[in-house]
Each structure stands twice: as C-alpha cells, then as structure tokens.
C-alpha cells in the first residue's frame, strides 16, 4: 500500500511515522461481562495456552497476536467480542455516567461494537439506531450473540429521529475512515478531499440533531476514526458556534493521546476544542481516532 504524497503533506503536523499506517493492527477483544467474568476468560485462555495481554487502561479488554481467538468455545458462546481498541474508548469515557443513565442512544450503531459494550456497562435502555438497513443485520446478530436484552433497534435517518431526551448519546457518524488503514488498506485508494468535505457537511447536521436529543446536563460523545480536522475539530467547533454546548476534558489514565488542533489552515477554533483528543497510531500501536465529550447546557 502506498500512502499518497498529498496525504503525508497534509498530516505530517501530527503523524511522524507514516509507515505504521501500513502495518497490520494488533488483534484486540473485550470480555462480555453480561455472560462471564474477566478472571474466567484469563483462566480459560491460560489453559488453552493462548497468550493474551490485559490493557492497563481497560481491564475488560485484551490484545493477542493469536489468530486462534475465533476458534475458541468462548468466542462461539459470545463470552468475548472482537473490537478495535480505539473503538472501545468512546464508551469507556462515559463509564461513570452510564451507572445512573436510564436512556442511551447509539446513533450510528452498526455493526454494534459500542452498543454491545454499552450493554455490559449499564442497566439503561439502549436504543441502537442505524440508517443502513443492510448493516442492521450485523447489529442485530451482535446484540443477540452478546445477549444484550436492554436494547431496542431502530432504522432511522438520525436527522429525522423522533424528538426524545437521552441521558447519553454516542455519535460515531460515517467518516472518511483515514485512521483505519491498518485494517482496511483500500481506504487510501478512495481517499479524496471531496469525500472529506462531503462527510464534514453531513457530520455537522448529525451533531446538531444528536445534541438536541441529549437532555439538559446529559452527555454527547462525538467520535470518528479519521484524521481530517474538517471531520473532527471543525464539526465540534460548528456545534459550539450554534449552541451553548460545553466541552469536558477527557482523561484516560495510562493512555497516551495527542492534543486536538486549535487551528487548521486558515481556520481558528474555539479554545474549548483543546479538551477533545486525537489518538495517533504511532503513540500506542492502534488505529487513528478523535473523541469529544460534550455536555448539554
């Protein structure tokens, strides 16, 4: 896979090692605590002689080089769920708030990684929504596999979602996926500025609607798996311009993050944007990601 020259020029401000974008991603999984415990999984994998390493910042998550994870009884029974590390972080950030939540929305939920993770961490009712009916099938399969009873599936364009009030809304909208090249190398073949702008325009509409669905003092998590500031800082900045939203500082103990950009090209962003985080692959051998934690005021 060759990385386009224009891509390197564009992102060399925060990516120093572009080679890592062509390397395979370490395999990671999460323990489904609805059905089993972390200790049982550790014990069983030790018996299998499959090496797994617990993550210091998330004790329910493990990485493993073994290609054999999918051939275990635990995989079949839905005791474990394969999920990329960065994709686990948006839910991890609201772990505390989830304890008192009654209603949670996963706004662009398919294939269900975050929905099933939410179900492990809350007794709240979770509405898992996705616009794409074909992807709903995978979402339904994963919810059933994990045994997440407290879930409701909807197939709505988020922009026209019925007016409701949620304690927490997760918005991980369609994006240019630049941070997933280690898993999907063909992302760079389709990479273009037109795609970035197209996504950015849609994301601005979605973040406004998602914010409207959060109840007062509730939390909106906005995340993408892309590097483009137009799809990250600029989208959150747009929300700050249009509403009274306030950003909350994100701290993930023992996890290295890169500060968000407060300006990009000719644009200067609201100072609050400093509270959002970027995850750069070379920092921790992961994919690329962006997360903002937004409080409704």
């Amino acid at each position: 896979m060759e990385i386009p020259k224009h891509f390197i020029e564009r992102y060399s401000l925060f990516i120093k090692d572009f080679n890592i974008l062509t390397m395979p991603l370490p395999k990671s999984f999460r323990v489904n605590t609805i059905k089993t415990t972390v200790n049982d999984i550790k014990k069983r994998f030790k018996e299998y002689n499959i090496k797994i390493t617990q993550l210091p910042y998330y004790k329910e998550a493990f990485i493993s080089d073994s290609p054999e994870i999918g051939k275990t009884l635990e995989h079949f029974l839905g005791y474990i769920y394969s999920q990329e590390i960065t994709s686990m972080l948006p839910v991890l950030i609201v772990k505390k708030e989830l304890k008192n939540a009654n209603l949670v929305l996963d706004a662009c939920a398919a294939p269900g990684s975050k929905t099933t993770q939410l179900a492990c961490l809350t007794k709240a009712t979770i509405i898992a929504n996705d616009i794409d009916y074909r992807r709903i099938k995978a979402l339904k399969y994963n919810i059933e596999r994990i045994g997440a009873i407290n879930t409701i599936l909807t197939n709505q364009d988020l922009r026209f979602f019925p007016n409701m009030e949620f304690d927490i809304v997760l918005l991980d909208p369609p994006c240019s996926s630049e941070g997933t090249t280690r898993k999907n190398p063909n992302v760079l073949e389709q990479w273009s500025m037109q795609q970035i702008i197209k996504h950015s325009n849609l994301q601005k509409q979605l973040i406004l609607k998602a914010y409207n669905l959060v109840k007062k003092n509730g939390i909106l998590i906005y995340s993408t798996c892309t590097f483009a500031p137009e799809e990250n800082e600029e989208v959150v900045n747009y929300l700050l311009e249009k509403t009274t939203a306030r950003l909350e500082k994100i701290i993930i103990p023992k996890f290295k993050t890169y500060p968000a950009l407060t300006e990009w090209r000719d644009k200067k962003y609201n100072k609050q944007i400093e509270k959002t985080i970027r995850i750069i692959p070379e920092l921790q051998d992961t994919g690329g990601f962006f997360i903002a934690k937004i409080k409704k005021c």
Partner: protein
Amino acid sequence: MLKKIEKKEGKRLLNLLKKEYDIEQNIFKNYELYEKNNKIYLGPKNIIEKAISCGIPIYNLKSKKPSTTFFQSFGMFIKKNIIDLNKEQTIYYIDGKDILIVQNEKKYVLVKYKEFSIGCGLIKDNILKNQIPKNKQIRLKYI
C-alpha cells in the same frame, strides 16, 4: 411490526417455558415480551414506536422452538430437558453436525457441555438434530 405481548398471553408463554424447562419465571421480571413474525423477543420494559426489533429472540411460535440465543443466555436457570455432550460431541455439534443418541421422544432440549449452555437441539429418532444457526456454526479448536 414489533408488538408488545398482552399480559395473559405472556403468562401463557412463560408457563409453557416453566413446564418444558422448569425455568424460574421471576428471572424475566425486569423485561417484557414482544412478538414479530411469529418470533417472541425478550426486551426492555418500554420500547418506542419506531422499534424494528429489541433484545433477544427467545421462542418461535410456529415451530414451537426455543432459540439458541435464549438457551445461551438463560441456560443456567434451566433444570429440565437438558442433554449433556462430551467434548468430542460438542465440537461436532458446534460445527453443525447431528449427534447419535439413545433417546426417542421428540422434543427440543438445552444442549450443554460441562457448565456451558451450547444452544438448542431437537431430539428425534435417536438423533440430536442440530439447531445451531448456520451463521453461528464454527469448527472449534479450543474447548
């Protein structure tokens, strides 16, 4: 369309599960039963009008078959109509194969391996007929 099952019908279904599998009814008290296309779902107490599905499917009204998903989630509460497989049989079963057994009475049973609830099986003519959905079948290497 997903619709809430009326109290009386819900009670009848739970009684049926109690009779067939001796499963305690109070484990369902925090949930509600719903129906769509002859499938019974166990889901949250309240759903919204736009819901297309919820929770997990537990029972098929047409075939009168409990789902593998239901047995995998609630198998530990089932005390009746259980068949225990050994390691080799379990590997075959999860791979989608039928198992020869010495039981004749036609019925759906919970298939277990040690303490693990593997899923649903159909006993018929001395065969445990495989009921693991095709998209869940795998060739296990570690058990």
